[in-house]
């Protein structure tokens, strides 16, 4: 059926603030859906209260509502606009739940709104574990033996019947919340209680655990004519038992025969067709017994999911974009493959590469948290890497994680104690893949590793090849001794020069120099959905060491934008927003906009946002090769958070132009000592501080600065390991902990301004003129990390003098640092005195928030200023404030039940929401303010 012309205006529901289990992948799907619908001439309204999203930007939708995701907000929109249909499948479980709630209240019926892309009955069926199980049995598919329990007693009975090990799965929760494995009877009671209390319907499923079975996921698309295609098959390297969001996953499936796969495909299609009659995306998870190859269905998500975002990036097939078109009536055979533009959208992508997705965890932020991986998702972000073989993709994924690893081991971070390693193999946590390699290096048999991890021996054998290669490599003393074929092979399986250097105990630059001398350079291959069968028009590339290079640089003027890598606490979706705007501004200015990033959840890595996309680790060696190929006019490092900024030094050293503020100025802002000297020169007050490289020095510094003191390691993100100490004993203890975990680091000690107010300014400077984008006052007192604070825009209680002083200081600093582009400055205000705490010469977490609140495209303005194509005076900037806007931090503490939820200098929030209030008599504000007083009395 062609497009349904009765749908002229659609409401898309977003997924709200980022929490663990529901992250920026839904910004990607929502944005894609919105663009897809607008392409069809449909007016799109969008509701989401997450200000850091690109979907809530005027570039994405016609009408954006930054409102809380409640039925009241929906009604408000429906009153205001003529909406024909609502598309609730793009915003994860949150959007679906809201749509169902509105449906139950009769809202859709009342306003005569059609729900598209979804079948409520299908959702209910897949969410209700018992009904789902019965349904699967009814259509002849197998499920794990289980029983439903609505009370403690019923749960106990179920456990007795099913036996251990078993799984407790609460109904209607997100990201596996409240789910648990129970290996023995002693652990059962507590797990059951938690499960029952987490379920909104007080219902859990007690299920037989199929530990050690292999886990696969299929991404499907179905149209209204019941045509179904499988877009991607993903194999979880980590077997059943670890949440798929916390599993290392690989596509295409590596260890699946055609017979087993086709059975899975048949069952998936059968299951999807049995679920109501919606047109759109669907994700199905299977477990496969490796011995018998029997299959059981684990779960079905009849909507666009985290996995579909990954599948889209992995295959090049834009699932959300097509799903949106299916929702408005198109059939798959009426649409074109978006990558080739000539072939049909009704087809199944074929890959001629391997992708590896690796989760990124942030356990260090949650002191006391249980690092064990299980049913409940704990990772905060992910990376995807593409290679021409599994090992290359795996090592590139390690390089993308940005946690100091240079690849899969061989980077000084290996463990050497077998007993510790074996323990970590059995109790999976964030480092298991590295520990597998350590174990193999120490000679632990493959069989033992398989027994402990249940990981398919194929993967273990692959990793073992690396151990053998390293043994061989270590026989050479200097790079020049390495034969070319061997060197090339090392690169083909993903080794970075840094790893080779470490194994040979030589300098990385020698390895790189010799490699280049041998002509072992990266070539780039296209992600084209069809394994090269058809010509593709989409410039989406990854690097490898194969013969032919497909990325032919153009002669256009071009600029590279560096992305921010995996999402993590302190650096997330907001930088994706910044990068997207940077790319748009570059395109508008006639530049070829080239994006480099490795985060599959982002909009900036969508194949049609940049002019050219390199899906590569934001890792120097990879970046250098791209720059040497493309020879851009410059690189933008201001938009990709600290990740991108950190690479400025290497760019500067190699004389690669940095767009906007130059490296010495950035370095000046980042270097605490030099920056304080600058402040002194500018006669700007700052808290007394000092730097120490050991505990003795730390005590000495504290004597000067006085207590309370703020202690932190230098160069960290989101206030990691930052503490407030009040005496020598506490100081000593904390400093020692820092040195233990981060040897070679230095410690910064600041006098802590107790009971001070905190505020921050985001500004754009063109080298001469400074434009203050916004001044935000934090409701919480200084001492709470700015990312965890509720920021009110504009200020609400600070004196006019204090605000003027802040503006004056910001202008002085921006000019003194010769900023060309963005700067964020943080202040503490005690009494009438304004202190400058720090300055970040880049886009900050709050830049998108201000852009949304004031409805000004600040990021595009900033990018044009950076480029030098415009001066600030070229813009007529008219902020349109609506009362006060509050940036409210959102936490994911439910995933870490035993963690200290008190806020402090270390950031813990995973996301943020925006709230508008007319004035400070608003009850929402008064509640936040009341909490502030609690912090003060603590």
């Amino acid at each position, binding site marked *: 059926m062609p497009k349904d012309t009765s749908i002229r205006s659609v409401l898309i529901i977003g997924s709200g603030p980022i929490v663990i289990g529901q992250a920026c992948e839904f910004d990607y799907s929502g944005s894609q859906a919105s663009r897809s619908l607008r392409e069809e001439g449909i007016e799109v309204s969008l509701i989401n209260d997450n200000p850091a999203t690109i979907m809530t930007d005027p570039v994405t939708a016609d009408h954006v509502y930054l409102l809380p995701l409640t039925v009241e907000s929906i009604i408000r929109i429906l009153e205001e606009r003529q909406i024909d249909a609502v598309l609730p499948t793009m915003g994860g479980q949150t959007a679906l739940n809201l749509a169902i709630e509105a449906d139950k209240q009769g809202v859709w019926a009342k306003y005569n709104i059609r729900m598209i892309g979804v079948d409520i009955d299908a959702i209910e069926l897949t969410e209700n574990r018992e009904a789902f199980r019965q349904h699967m049995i009814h259509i002849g598919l197998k499920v794990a033996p289980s029983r439903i329990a609505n009370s403690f007693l019923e749960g106990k009975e179920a456990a007795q019947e099913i036996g251990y090990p078993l799984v407790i799965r609460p109904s209607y929760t997100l990201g596996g919340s409240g789910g648990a494995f129970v290996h023995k009877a002693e652990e059962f009671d507590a797990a059951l209680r938690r499960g029952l209390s987490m379920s909104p319907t007080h219902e859990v499923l007690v299920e037989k655990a199929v530990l050690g079975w292999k886990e696969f996921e299929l991404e499907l698309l179905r149209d209204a004519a019941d045509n179904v295609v499988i877009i991607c098959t993903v194999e979880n390297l980590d077997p059943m038992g670890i949440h798929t969001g916390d599993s290392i996953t690989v596509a295409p499936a590596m*260890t699946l025969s*055609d017979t087993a796969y086709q059975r899975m495909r048949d069952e998936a299609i059968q299951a999807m067709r049995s679920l109501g009659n919606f047109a759109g995306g669907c994700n199905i998870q299977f477990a496969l017994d490796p011995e018998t190859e029997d299959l059981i269905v684990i779960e079905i998500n009849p909507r666009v999911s985290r996995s579909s975002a990954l599948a889209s990036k992995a295959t090049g097939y834009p699932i959300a974009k097509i799903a949106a078109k299916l929702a408005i009536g198109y059939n798959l055979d009426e649409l074109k493959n978006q990558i080739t533009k000539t072939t049909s959208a009704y087809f199944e992508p*074929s*890959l*001629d590469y391997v992708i590896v997705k690796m989760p990124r965890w942030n356990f260090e932020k949650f002191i006391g948290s249980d690092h064990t991986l299980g049913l409940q998702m704990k990772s905060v972000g992910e990376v995807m890497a593409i290679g021409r073989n599994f090992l290359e993709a795996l090592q590139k994924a390690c390089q993308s994680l940005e946690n100091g690893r240079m690849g899969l081991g061989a980077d000084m971070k290996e463990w050497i104690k077998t007993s510790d390693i074996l323990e970590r193999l059995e109790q999976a946590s964030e480092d298991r893949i590295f520990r597998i390699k350590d174990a193999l290096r120490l000679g632990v048999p493959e069989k033992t590793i398989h027994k402990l991890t249940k990981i398919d021996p194929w993967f273990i054998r692959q990793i073992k090849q690396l151990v053998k*290669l390293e043994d061989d490599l270590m026989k050479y003393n200097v790079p020049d001794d390495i034969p070319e074929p061997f060197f090339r*092979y090392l690169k083909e399986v993903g080794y970075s020069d840094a790893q080779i250097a470490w194994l040979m105990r030589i300098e990385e630059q020698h390895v790189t120099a010799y490699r280049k001398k041998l002509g072992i350079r990266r070539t780039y291959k296209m992600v084209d959905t069809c394994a*090269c069968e058809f010509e593709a028009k989409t410039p989406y590339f990854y690097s490898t060491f194969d013969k032919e290079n497909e990325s032919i640089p153009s002669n256009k003027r071009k600029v590279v934008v560096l992305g921010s890598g995996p999402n993590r606490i302190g650096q997330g979706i907001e930088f994706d927003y910044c990068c997207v705007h940077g790319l748009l501004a570059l395109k508008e200015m006639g530049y070829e906009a080239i994006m480099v990033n490795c985060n599959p959840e982002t909009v900036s890595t969508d194949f049609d946002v940049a002019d050219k996309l390199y899906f590569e680790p934001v890792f120097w060696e990879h970046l250098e090769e791209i720059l040497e190929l493309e020879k851009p006019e410059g690189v933008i490092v201001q938009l990709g958070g600290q990740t991108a900024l950190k690479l400025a030094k290497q760019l500067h050293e190699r004389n690669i132009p940095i767009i906007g503020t130059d490296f010495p100025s950035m370095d000046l802002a980042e270097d605490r000592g030099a920056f304080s000297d600058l402040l002194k020169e500018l006669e700007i007050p700052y808290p007394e501080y000092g730097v120490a490289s050991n505990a003795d020095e730390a005590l000495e510094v504290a004597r000067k600065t006085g207590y309370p003191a703020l202690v932190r390691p230098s160069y960290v993100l989101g206030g990691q390991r930052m503490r407030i100490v009040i005496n020598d004993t506490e100081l000593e203890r904390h400093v020692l902990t820092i040195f233990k975990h981060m040897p070679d680091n230095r410690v910064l000690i600041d006098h802590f301004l107790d009971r001070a107010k905190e505020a921050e300014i985001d500004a754009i400077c063109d080298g001469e003129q400074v434009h203050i984008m916004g001044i935000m006052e934090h409701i919480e007192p200084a001492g709470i990390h700015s990312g965890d604070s509720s920021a009110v825009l504009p200020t609400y209680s600070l004196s006019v003098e204090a605000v003027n002083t802040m503006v004056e200081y910001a202008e002085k600093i921006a000019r003194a640092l010769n900023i060309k582009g963005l700067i964020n400055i943080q202040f503490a205000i005690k009494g009438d005195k304004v202190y400058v705490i720090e300055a970040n010469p880049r886009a900050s977490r709050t830049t998108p928030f201000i852009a949304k609140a004031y409805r000004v495209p600040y990021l595009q303005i900033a990018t044009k200023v950076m480029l030098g194509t415009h001066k600030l005076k070229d813009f007529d900037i008219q902020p349109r404030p609506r009362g006060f806007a509050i940036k409210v931090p959102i936490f994911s503490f439910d995933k870490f039940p035993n963690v200290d939820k008190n806020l402090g200098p270390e950031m813990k929030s995973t996301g943020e929401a925006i709230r508008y209030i007319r004035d400070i008599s608003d009850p929402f504000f008064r509640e936040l303010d009341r909490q502030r007083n609690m912090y003060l009395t603590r």
Partner: protein
Amino acid sequence: MGELKYTPAVLLLEDGTFFQGRAAGKIGTTSGEICFNTGMTGYQEIFTDPSYYGQLLVTTNAHIGNYGTKKTETESYSIKIAGLICKNFTPQYHRPMADQSIQDYFEEEQLVGISNVDTRAIVKHIRNKGAMNAIISSEVSDVTVLKKMLAEVPQMEGLELASKVSTKEPYTYGDPHATYKVAVLDYGVKQNILHCFAERDCYLRVFPAKTPLEDLIAWQPDGYFLSNGPGDPASMDYAVQTAKAILELDAPLFGICLGHQLLALALDIPTYKMHHGHRGINHPVKNLETGHCEITSQNHGFGVSPDAIRANADRVSITHMNLNDETIEGMQVNGKKAFSVQYHPEASPGPHDARYLFDKFVKLMEK
């Protein structure tokens, strides 16, 4: 040096394009027409598919061999491709159900291959320049010698290969007490086609390619099947004549792949050599009778002329069409119980979306 103990191998294409890689499988030399398959699963089924007889196969999937090989997952009793060209040849497999590694299997079956070549560049080359002959060697590295050897390899166009892979003697398959009897003309039939019939209550007798019609009729079948197979259909006059005669009988007739092309030729609709063919398990086909779409398994380098088939709309109807390039995927002879498809409804490897065609054929045989 562990991983790097390998025998070098070379691949030379008819137009002089040259690749260096590593030997995979048996050490030796082999030649044939180069083609590529984009399937991500089912390598063993592909290797043993008789339609690939005489061809050098490029697999685009990054790894080949991960799940080993299994005696029962074959489409004929031996490997039929002439040689393998792949990116990562992975003898270190894991699958509890498997029998042996791909390296052992190749050695046993005497198959020569080459790995660690830029398969994507090769595919792109074939896509642009079209199918051509090629030679793989892990013995000879002298290009002049290889060129000489390559010059002797016959061109696929005009080549009759079906009789080479066809059974020499007739044999039966399935339950002798089954309801229907199907006479299978074996031009290189895939095992799973026989299986798909047998599981639909059919008893089969598989006849050599050049069996005279009388011998088929003598067995008193309820229906006739023209199988898939290798080579140029235009060179198979004997088979075309048989197909014509079967059409005269007005008996149920089903053709797959080469069988589809033979049926077209029997209707005086010409076939043609495609630029580089369709080989993979993701080809989109639309059933024009129902409007439903199916993902199909394909393996063909020749096709049925769309113009000729349209010009003969009075005698034959197009039932299936390829959604990518609008080539003919299926047809029905008007007024007859005869139909055929260009793709492989039996799959193996590939999706099972088109199995209904076997049901359709069985229905035609209902008395």
